[in-house]
């Protein structure tokens, strides 16, 4: 018993700065109701995605043609679509698809963009020229249109959608990381590390990367909503997920011909997109504000 207590108190002593940081973050979050709304929405989405097979009332793909286009009722809370599939179950499973696209796209983009940006910023010269001019080419087009063009060229499928979105998004991270690197590499402690004979790879990994990560991660949280929106948009246009995948954009697309008489078919998936994008954007804004010491001090 005493042992446990001393272990806990020594752990507290060793991690005192982390504990106070965590307290400060909790405190700042409490002060911003919109962040809490965003956080709750995101947490709810994640839970729904994880628990999808257990909480969805019906099979999302099973067709019941005798019960097509049924209006919302107790057995089908959000009604059924043109093939008699339960819309609620499809939306619940669609959460998985949406979050999966988002996670995979960011898992490709964030490391790729940050790596290229740091390399460009740290080495400069022609390396910088090549990487940043490539980034400029991608940034010259509106993101959605470029993603559509690439998606159309690769052929319509979920994987190609992810590739297309990933290709259009890395330049934003590369630019951000490059800018940070340019200022970080002139700082005194980098000079001190050079004087200690630290290798370039080690300077990049242990000094520049951690200092770039906060801004780029904040940027990534702001982009989460965008990824979901673009992916849904591409599926809506037929470039993304293919039937019978329960994907929100695809559901809106097939349901839009029933909008006048069976309004629930396209409307509820549309709401799902709205809530997801809204939640991620609010959370992203909140994380940006909390991680910015200037804004925090202003309160």
């Amino acid at each position, binding site marked *: 018993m005493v042992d446990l207590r001393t272990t806990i108190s020594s752990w507290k002593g*060793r991690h005192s700065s982390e504990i106070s940081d965590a307290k400060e973050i909790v405190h700042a979050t409490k002060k911003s109701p919109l962040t809490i709304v965003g956080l709750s929405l995101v947490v709810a989405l994640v839970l729904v995605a994880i628990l999808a097979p257990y909480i969805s009332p019906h099979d999302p793909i099973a067709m019941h043609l005798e019960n097509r286009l049924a209006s919302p009722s107790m057995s089908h809370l959000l009604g059924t679509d043109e093939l008699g599939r339960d819309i609620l179950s499809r939306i619940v499973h669609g959460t998985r698809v949406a979050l999966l696209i988002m996670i995979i796209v960011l898992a490709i983009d964030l490391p790729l963009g940050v790596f290229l940006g740091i390399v460009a910023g740290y080495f400069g010269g022609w390396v910088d020229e090549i990487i940043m001019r490539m980034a400029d080419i991608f940034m010259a087009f509106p993101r959605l249109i470029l993603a559509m063009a690439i998606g159309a060229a690769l052929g319509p499928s979920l994987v190609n959608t992810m590739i297309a979105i990933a290709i259009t998004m890395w330049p934003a991270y590369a630019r951000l990381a490059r800018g940070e690197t340019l200022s970080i590499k002139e*700082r*005194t402690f980098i*000079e*001190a590390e050079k*004087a*200690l*004979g*630290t290798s370039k790879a080690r300077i990049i990994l242990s000094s520049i990367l951690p*200092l770039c990560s906060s801004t780029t991660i904040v940027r990534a949280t702001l982009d989460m909503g965008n990824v979901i929106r673009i992916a849904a948009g591409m599926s809506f246009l037929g470039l993304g997920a293919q039937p019978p995948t329960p994907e929100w954009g695809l559901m809106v697309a097939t349901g839009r011909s029933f909008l006048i008489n069976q309004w629930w078919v396209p409307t509820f998936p549309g709401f799902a997109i709205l809530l997801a994008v809204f939640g991620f954007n609010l959370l992203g804004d909140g994380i940006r504000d909390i991680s910015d010491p200037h804004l925090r001090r202003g309160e």
Partner: protein
Amino acid sequence: MIPEALVEINDLVINFYTYRGVVKAINGVNLEIKKGEFFGLVGETGCGKSVTGSAILNLVPNPGRIEKGEIIFKGKDILSMDEDDVRERIRGKEITMIMQHPIAALNPVLKNGDQITEALSRKMSEGAAKKRAIELLKEVNIPEPEKIANQYPHQLSGGMAQRVMIAMMLATEPSLLIADEPTTALDVSIQAQVLSLLQDLIKRHKASVLLITHDLSIVAETCDRVGVMYAGDIVEVGEVDQIINNPRHPYTVGLMRAIPSDSRKELVGIRGSVPDLVNPPPGCRFHPRCDYTRDICKERKPKTMQMESNHTAACFLCEGGRSG
């Protein structure tokens, strides 16, 4: 026995290529630092002290370029060595550097202890490095080293941070420590502590120090020998009491007169200001500000003259002595 030279700088020329033109920052510097000595390099801001220091590590900042010269360290020319070799064998092994702003010179995302372990990581295992880091923090008189090791640099005062920095540099057991204005950012009382700590440690570790400063009083208290720099030239080198009590170069004489003391009622500054090194004055770079300028000073760069043992000055006034 005369101690051997540890570093020998021969005819070092460094130019900076800026938009305004070529800044002739270092104009043929010759310098020798002996084993185990505390060498002070003094001069005004912008005279090339720090650039000389970073040249020893072959880390001249952009857009500077080493045009000419050699830096012989333990019999090898650092400037003609391979960049990877310099990094592997010299920096952080044989020669290290302490910076002016200690807090800025520590990595803000690493805990103080980890900064030191990082420096040790090329030498020993992680566990051993952690132990050694605490020992080193103790050695630089940090109270509660375990606690400080667990804090981040921004939680330290300037004096503490400079001690951590010194511990970090000592961790590598260098034979030459370049201290670039190590106390400028510190309070006067902390300055004295840090300097005496540095002196102690240097004696214990049998290393040499190149102390770069603009403060002659620091030099007088701590150094064995002094070099005086002016506008990219070494104008005078000698033992501390030779420089303080018997300065021979008009610039050094001027510096001495500009220090307040009890016996002097009025402070006399050096007239004029530091020359623009894009278009440095011809001949002796000090001649526009010198009280003893002769025609020859405007035409030729004076050679370094041997005044007495261990004391040299680069001035035509000293021509009575032997040419060295």
